[in-house]
Each structure stands twice: as structure tokens, then as C-alpha cells.
């Protein structure tokens, strides 16, 4: 038996609390007024309660439960909280190049708990399979809970019940009943009530012996609208996993250098980097800076190129300029979906060493300048007629190796050592010089050539964050819809007032989903205006 008959003759689906036709509570117990059904879904049967025979319905019913939804939310909350106990993988302070290193880091640093943490995937929480599953389950629950409630609610609200059963009216929190004097024109009483309520902005539904006044019905859709927003938001987050939708890269570019942006056909060149500082006059008050400065802006003047030769990575690029302009913090360079942000800098880094070659034997006569580009030293350069300088050895980050031979620690010019050979072809002279740590070592104590130091080229290296996020419009749109839903639900109330006349009595009842105080004032105003012979009682629900 999946239907139940009301005494008015209407058959209702199982789970219905208030008769769909006359509004009479269907459970015997609810004659006790304290146990009057919750008006949240108008006493309609939740759709899932209706049929439970097929397996598909069972799954549906499971997700339709708000208890399950709350359970999922709590599990997600707890998991997110646990995910903050130890650092996420991306914040590990030491390099962990392989997965084994990551595992070892958690075990070595945090012991058994760390092992468990890593084993359960808490180190990469947002992309761990079970966290992602929980998010999709939450989405499922959102969709099904909403569908299951909004449809019956819509049906109930779009067919307003006018001739409500007396017990429905009596069950409302605001209820009043009074004897009418025999000479009162009942139709006129209802008409004037309708008029008074209409002035208050109510929409009036009229039957022969009853009126129902309603306003702010749309606020009932607020929660469902904000669920739609949440679902769009979740879809947006999920879309980031579609190839090409999301990219987050970081590139370092030296002034004057052109580098490829990984996974795109683009190259970027830094023409100049500049940090601007606040001047004293611009500061609002005297600050005790003690000679310090406060940066105002960080700016890279960049040129963006597209590579026409991009099919084969590494192949000599064929670059065409697409864009030129400044990249400032919070003002990225945009090219289609690609956004390039200023997000780091290493200032005043060694770029090139400058010397002047001198002839010691001729009273330090200047022979010519030598420039050693530390990122790409020329193998040979002609300084003056017949005088050539060759780079024999170059160690950008010099260290004396364990085998006693010079070596380099990295490929960055942090501590450059250069071995030079200077050849004068006219005299067939050959001398070797080594530059290291601000001094020059010569091969012979009485050599002919010497080096005079000049100011080295110092360059700034810009750190640029390159991002593509095609899901952003959808995520913002979802957030916007969510906000609309919240506003709908919070700032408006669904108020209804019923007035009925029954055999010499007048019945008055009112309901709102929030702000009872406001409703009470409107009802009191109505009673006063029409001089209704009733006292409004406001029940507190158990």
C-alpha cells in the first residue's frame, strides 16, 4: 500500500504529512498541536520516500538523505583538518625529487604517524583518490537532495490550498479564532481583509469562504539556487583536470634572455626588470626605516613571442612577437587564456665579468676590454689586433673537487672561475690567467699580461608565474549564483496569511519561514484595522 487516503477524499503518496488537498495533518498523533508537521517542505512526501523497490531507487534514496549529506560534509571537514597537521607535499622544505624521497621525508621527520599520513594520501590531500571521491559524493548528494525536495515543494506552492482543514490552521504558530456577530457580512469581511493585505504587498488567492495571502514565495527557492551555484563550482574545479584547462608553471628569465614557456608554444623575453621604491615624500608619516626602503612595485618589461617551430621541442625557434609590455604584480600579461604574473625576483646577480687587458711590461698600457658572459662565455674573442683571449675552462660555481681538480657545484654562476689563455699572434706569446673569487692568478710571476677589474654586469632575474585556468569563469559564475541564492533565502521571507469563515466563526492563521516578528506585526495590524473579534496567540513549538 503506497498511498493513504485523507478524510477529504484525496489520496496522498506515502510520506505525506499534510494532505495535498486540504492540508489536514495525516498522522493521528499530530492532532497534538505541539507535534504539528514541519512546514519546511509543505508537508509533502519527499520523492525518494515514495518508491524503494528498484536498486536504482535505493541508491537514490541513500543520497537523498540530509543525514548522509551532513555525514559526508563532516568527513570532508575532518579530512581537511587532518591534512593540515603535517605539511602538504608542495611545502616540504627540502628537495624531494622522487616519490621515494617524499615517502622517506614523512617517515624520517614524523615517525610512524608520518608513514601513515603518507600512506593514506594526506600529503597530497586535494588530489588523493578518496578525497576526490568524497567531493563527488557531496556533489551527488547536493543534486539528489535538491531534486527530491524542490519538485514536491514547487508542486505544493504552485497550487495554493485555500480551503485548508481547520486542523491545518490550528497547527500554525500564529492562529486566532473568534465568533462573528450574526449581522457581519462574511464575504465583505474577506474582501476587506484581502484589500488590507494587498496593500501590504501580499498576493491574494480567493475562494468563496477563504482567502490566502502570500508574499516572498521566491525566497523558498534560495537554497536550491545556491545549491546550483555550488554544483557549478564543483564542476569548475573538476574541469581543471581536463587536459589544456589548467596550467601552473614558473619560469626564471634573466634580463636580455628569451626562454621557452613549458607546455606552450610561447617564449618570453625580459628586456628590463625594475623595482620601484616609495619615496620619503610619498609616505604618510615619518617611518623609522633606519635607512631601509619599502618597495612600491615590481616590474618586468617583457616581450612575448610565439614559436612557429613548436612541433619539435628544443628545435631552433622561429619567433614572432605577439605582445610587448610591462608585467607588474597583480597586473599580469594576458594572451588568450594565458596569464603571466610577476611573482619573484633575484636582483643584482652576476651576469658578466668585465676586465681590461693591460700590458704590464709597457707600464700597464691598456690593450682592450674583455667581457666574460657568465651564462655563455665566448670561446674566443679578439681584444686588439692580433691579441686573442680564449676560455680554456669555465666553472660557474667553483669548488675544489675531492680529487683535487676544480669542479662546479651547480650550473649557475654563483662563484665563477675562468681560465683564460691570452695569445699575441704577432709575437707568438702565450700566457694563461685564472680569475677566481675576485683575484687573478698568473702562470708566470713576471708575465706580460695583466687584468684590471671593471664593474661586472649585474642583472636582475625575474620569476614569472605562468597560468592557464579556463575554469575560472565557471567558478566565479558558480560563486555568483551561490551568492544570489543566499541573498534570496536570507533577505526575503515567504509569508502567508489564511483567513476563513466557518459557520459563524472567523479563523485566522499565518506562517512564515523566518522573521516571525515582522509577520506578527502585519497580522496584528490586520486584526486591528478590521476590528476582528479574535486574540492572536503565538505558540512556541516544542
Amino acid at each position, binding site marked *: 500500500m503506497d498511498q493513504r487516503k485523507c478524510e477529504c477524499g484525496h489520496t496522498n503518496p506515502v510520506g505525506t504529512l499534510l494532505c495535498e488537498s486540504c492540508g489536514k495533518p495525516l498522522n493521528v498523533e499530530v492532532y497534538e498541536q505541539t507535534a504539528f508537521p514541519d512546514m519546511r517542505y509543505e508537508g509533502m512526501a519527499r520523492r525518494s520516500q515514495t518508491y524503494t523497490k528498484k536498486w536504482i531507487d535505493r541508491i*537514490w534514496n541513500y543520497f537523498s538523505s540530509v543525514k548522509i549529506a551532513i555525514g559526508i560534509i563532516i568527513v570532508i571537514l575532518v579530512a581537511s583538518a587532518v591534512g593540515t597537521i603535517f605539511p602538504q607535499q608542495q611545502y616540504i622544505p627540502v628537495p624531494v625529487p*622522487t616519490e621515494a624521497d617524499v615517502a622517506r621525508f614523512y617517515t624520517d621527520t614524523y615517525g610512524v604517524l608520518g608513514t601513515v599520513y603518507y600512506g593514506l594520501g594526506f600529503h597530497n590531500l586535494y588530489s588523493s583518490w578518496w578525497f576526490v571521491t568524497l567531493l563527488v559524493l557531496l556533489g551527488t548528494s547536493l543534486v539528489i537532495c535538491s531534486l527530491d525536495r524542490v519538485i514536491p515543494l514547487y508542486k505544493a506552492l504552485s497550487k495554493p490550498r485555500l480551503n485548508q482543514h481547520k486542523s491545518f490552521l490550528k497547527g500554525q504558530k500564529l492562529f486566532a479564532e473568534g465568533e462573528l456577530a450574526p449581522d457581519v457580512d462574511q464575504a465583505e469581511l474577506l474582501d476587506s481583509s484581502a484589500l488590507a493585505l494587498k496593500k501590504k504587498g501580499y498576493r491574494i488567492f480567493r475562494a468563496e469562504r477563504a482567502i490566502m495571502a502570500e508574499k516572498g514565495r521566491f525566497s523558498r527557492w534560495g537554497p536550491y539556487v545556491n545549491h546550483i551555484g555550488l554544483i557549478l563550482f564543483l564542476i569548475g574545479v573538476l574541469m581543471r583536470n581536463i587536459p589544456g584547462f589548467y596550467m601552473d608553471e614558473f619560469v626564471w628569465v634573466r634580463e636580455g634572455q628569451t626562454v621557452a614557456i613549458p607546455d606552450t608554444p610561447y617564449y618570453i623575453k625580459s628586456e628590463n626588470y625594475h623595482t620601484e621604491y616609495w619615496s620619503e615624500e610619498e609616505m604618510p608619516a615619518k617611518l623609522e626605516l633606519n635607512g631601509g626602503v619599502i618597495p612600491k612595485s615590481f616590474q618586468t618589461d617583457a616581450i612575448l613571442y610565439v614559436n612557429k617551430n613548436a612541433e619539435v*621541442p628544443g628545435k631552433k625557434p622561429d619567433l614572432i612577437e605577439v605582445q610587448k609590455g610591462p608585467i607588474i604584480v597583480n597586473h599580469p600579461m594576458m594572451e588568450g587564456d594565458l596569464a603571466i604574473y610577476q611573482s619573484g625576483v633575484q636582483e643584482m646577480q652576476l651576469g658578466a665579468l668585465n676586465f681590461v687587458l693591460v700590458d704590464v711590461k709597457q707600464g700597464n698600457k691598456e690593450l682592450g676590454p674583455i667581457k666574460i658572459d657568465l651564462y655563455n*662565455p665566448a670561446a674566443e674573442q679578439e681584444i686588439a689586433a692580433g691579441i686573442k683571449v680564449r676560455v680554456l675552462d*669555465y666553472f660557474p660555481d667553483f669548488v675544489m673537487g675531492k680529487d683535487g681538480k676544480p669542479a662546479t657545484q651547480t*650550473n649557475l654562476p654563483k662563484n665563477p672561475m675562468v681560465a683564460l689563455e691570452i695569445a699575441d699572434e704577432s709575437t707568438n706569446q702565450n700566457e694563461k690567467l685564472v680569475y677566481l673569487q675576485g683575484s687573478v692568478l698568473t702562470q708566470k710571476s713576471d708575465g706580460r699580461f695583466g687584468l684590471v677589474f671593471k664593474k661586472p654586469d649585474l642583472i636582475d632575474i625575474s620569476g614569472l608565474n605562468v597560468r592557464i585556468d579556463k575554469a575560472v569563469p565557471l567558478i566565479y559564475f558558480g560563486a555568483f549564483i551561490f551568492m544570489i541564492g543566499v541573498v534570496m533565502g536570507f533577505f526575503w521571507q515567504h509569508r502567508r496569511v489564511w483567513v476563513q469563515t466557518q459557520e459563524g466563526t472567523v479563523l485566522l492563521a499565518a506562517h512564515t519561514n523566518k522573521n516571525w516578528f515582522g509577520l506578527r506585526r502585519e497580522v496584528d495590524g490586520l486584526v486591528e484595522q478590521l476590528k476582528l473579534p479574535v486574540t492572536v496567540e503565538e505558540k512556541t513549538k516544542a
Partner: protein
Amino acid sequence: MNKTNRTYVRVAVLGLLLVALVFALYSSFVKDPNAVKVGGDAPNFSLEQLNGPELALDDLKGKGVVLNFWGTWCEPCKKEMPALQEQYNKFKDKGLVVVGVNIGEAPVAVEPFVKQFGVDFPILLDRQSQITKLYRIGPIPTTFFIAPDGEVKEIFIGQLNEAMIADKMSKILPK
């Protein structure tokens, strides 16, 4: 809505959500779909050679390729280099080539190193570490053993000795 329609709607909604679940799970398991994997194809690239013309990986199809990423600052690379050269000498007539990819160094830094170890297999200069990123190189040396048809047979991170190199090379020789 009648009962059959209701079932269809429920199947459709749950089906869509199931697709979303499968997609979400797939993308959480396959974190980097472009990573070079054993059993997958080695992505083609082209780089300038130290003292030679540009060389593309595809030009070496039909030969077994040992792709070794190294730098002069890396001690294990130094120790491995003579072993690679030794095995290259043994296998080069059997259709095998060793290609060294130097990571981001200037030719004047690379050349003395190569001479010091008597390396005569092609050395490519990845000046901007573009190919290093493409192949997701973490610690070096990292060595890829690529079959004549371009399939990656093995990826080895760390220093190789002669016996290991010989064993792995013999598995990627052309038939």
C-alpha cells in the same frame, strides 16, 4: 511523472554523476598525463650538438638509443661517463647510439669536460633545460633506454656501472 520515467531520470542523473566520479578518480591517479613512462613513446625533440649540427631524436629511429641526462656539476655523472663511453664503443656497431644531454651549461664549460673523459658520442646542449623539463628529470644522472621503434624500455635514475649498462643496452638492440 510516471514510474518508468522516474526510473529513466534517476538512471540518467546517477549515470552523469558516475561519469564525473570516474573522471575525477582518473585524473587523481594520472597526475601528469604527459610524463614519459616506461612502455610509452619517447617524445621527439631536437637540440644543437656540441661541435655538430642539430640532432633530433626521431633521426635515430631504427637504432637503440641510450639517452643520458647529465651535468658537469654532478659527481655520479662524472663516474658514469667512462662506463657509458666504454659500452658505447662495444655496442655502436650493433645499431646502438648513446646521446648525452647536458643540462643548461655553456659550451665552454662542457667541452673541457667531454675532452677530459674522451667522450665521442653525441652531446646535446639543452641550454634552457627545455628537454630536461619535457622528460621530467629530477635527480641526475637519469638515463632512458629507448628501443629502435621509439618505445621507452627503461628509465634509470642514478649512477650506472658497466655491467648494468651492457645488460640494459643488449635489450634495446635492433633485431
